[in-house]
């Protein structure tokens, strides 16, 4: 458990050194290869982008350079944290959240 803590901290520190910027003018055009990713981009713009513009920091934290796994993101979305509101399943259905995660994965690797 102690090693895992150290490992997580190391990964977080390394990630903090990278830029979260993913704009076309900085990182080149983003290629979305599946319909799921295309839908995810649209839902991201509806639900997430206003606080995490293009996955960067804004009113909320940057997402692009945080090593958060799918389950952790799901938990944070459903329960909220700090100023971030909780998103109920009625407001943001599981299928849409799945699509958003697929898009976010592509965006972070871009």
């Amino acid at each position, binding site marked *: *458990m102690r090693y*895992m*803590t150290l490992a*997580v*901290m190391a990964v*977080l520190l390394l990630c903090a050194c990278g*830029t979260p*910027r993913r*704009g*076309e*003018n*900085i990182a*080149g*055009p983003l290629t979305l290869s599946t319909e799921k990713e295309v839908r995810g*981009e*649209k839902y991201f*713009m*509806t639900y997430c*982008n*206003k*606080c995490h*513009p*293009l996955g*960067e*920091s*804004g*009113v*909320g*934290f*940057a997402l692009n350079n*945080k090593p*958060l796994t799918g*389950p*952790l993101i799901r*938990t*944070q979305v459903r329960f*909220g*944290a*700090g*100023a*971030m*509101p*909780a*998103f*109920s399943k009625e*407001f943001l259905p599981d299928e849409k959240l799945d699509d958003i995660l697929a898009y976010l994965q592509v965006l972070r690797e871009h």
Partner: protein
Amino acid sequence: MGKIRFICMFIMVACLAGCYAMRPSSGGGGQTELAEEGRRVDPADISLPFGYRIEVVATGLTFPTGVTFDEKGNVYVVEAGYSYGEVWETPRLLRVADGGLRVIAEGGENGPWTGAVRHDGAFYVAEGGELEGGRILRIADNGEITTIADHLPSRGDHHTNGPVAGRDGLIYFGIGTATNSAIVGEDNLKFGWLKRYPGFHDTACRDIRLTGENYRSKDFLKGTGEVSTGAFAPFGTATSKGQVIKGRIPCNGAVFRVNPDGGDLKLVAWGFRNPFGLAFSPDGELFVTDNGYDDRGSRPVFGAGDPLWLVKEGTWYGWPDYSAGLRLDEGNQFKPFLQEKPRLLLAEYPNHPPNPAAILPVHASADGFDFSRNESFGHRGEAFIALFGDQSPATGKSLGAVGFKVVRVDVRTGVINEFAANSGKKIGPASALESSGFERPIAARFDPSGEALYVVDFGILKETEKGAEPQRKTGVLWRITREVK
């Protein structure tokens, strides 16, 4: 064991990510630096997609807000003559030529002039109206000014904005609301106008029925005691349940149109907060950028983005109880941290507000924009929007700088892409990044050929706890063209 590991990891990540409450605001407004020896400008500090090029057209402008072109392709810029921070200058329409600026017309002390359009051989300018109320001005080539719309209720936080010319030959413009969310409070005193006009408040366009929610605050005008203030009412005036506020024209938080020769003022749509940018798409549809609520004042609203709306005649767009089509009591979506949710102010709604074409980031201040019409520039039919950038901390806390760039938006899907922004690892105004790129883009407009996108950069404006601190002669006009296809 797996479950425990997962919970530990989640707690650790949440802790390492930092506690929102303990973090200071890191918005671009507060990080802006005033220039001691003039503003440095270098196009090389701005990143664009492959094939595009940016250059400087004019520098040394004081609070520029708009750009337009005459029939010969000559370029004109508008200087506001007023900026947040209660800094007054002379509003001016200037012709940009041969690296110099020539004055075409000057206004009085009633800025800000927020934009201009050339139509049928004359210029049309929106006069914000901070002292005397908003106006739409017609300016002839010889500088003669005629008022075509007057007494517009825009002496508050937001002003008379635009204008643009429609295919119908009429002039369209916006009027912003007096307040953040319909309750006059201390934030309006900081803007400066509440002391000048203690009776000023928002004006409804149609009759509305109130819930009677009132907000208690200190009596900031007298300095002692407390007052209760209701919606669409002067500071210190309470409202009651079921009370009807009579609608009247002109109102604010609305888009209007007027005959170019004056008269026949018509309401187009209402329920906006600050419809700042107006543009017609290549298909002739009217779109507006609407600056969303701030986390400030007696009725703060958290997490409200800036909608880009497709304007449908006669429609109500949701202010002061909706944000981008969502009601303010939707979950905790708009609840400020450690404060109550905004209480609803209207007992009934004229219609269910539509969904926006796109939602620009919270505090980005989505302002002047235009549609690409030329395949040779690319992205035909997409909107290119100038994001002025956050005014944090005055407008609310931000964990990073937001805006300070030009984005392009596919209005069919709502997908937003960064188009032009300062280079480097971080977003922000040039002065905060120690670069020489964009400070605060406030308008983007294509020239008549559609081959060049002009970007008006307002210049340096720093936000402090005391208010805005704008810097004269730091405005810039940029031009973006496509060199490689």
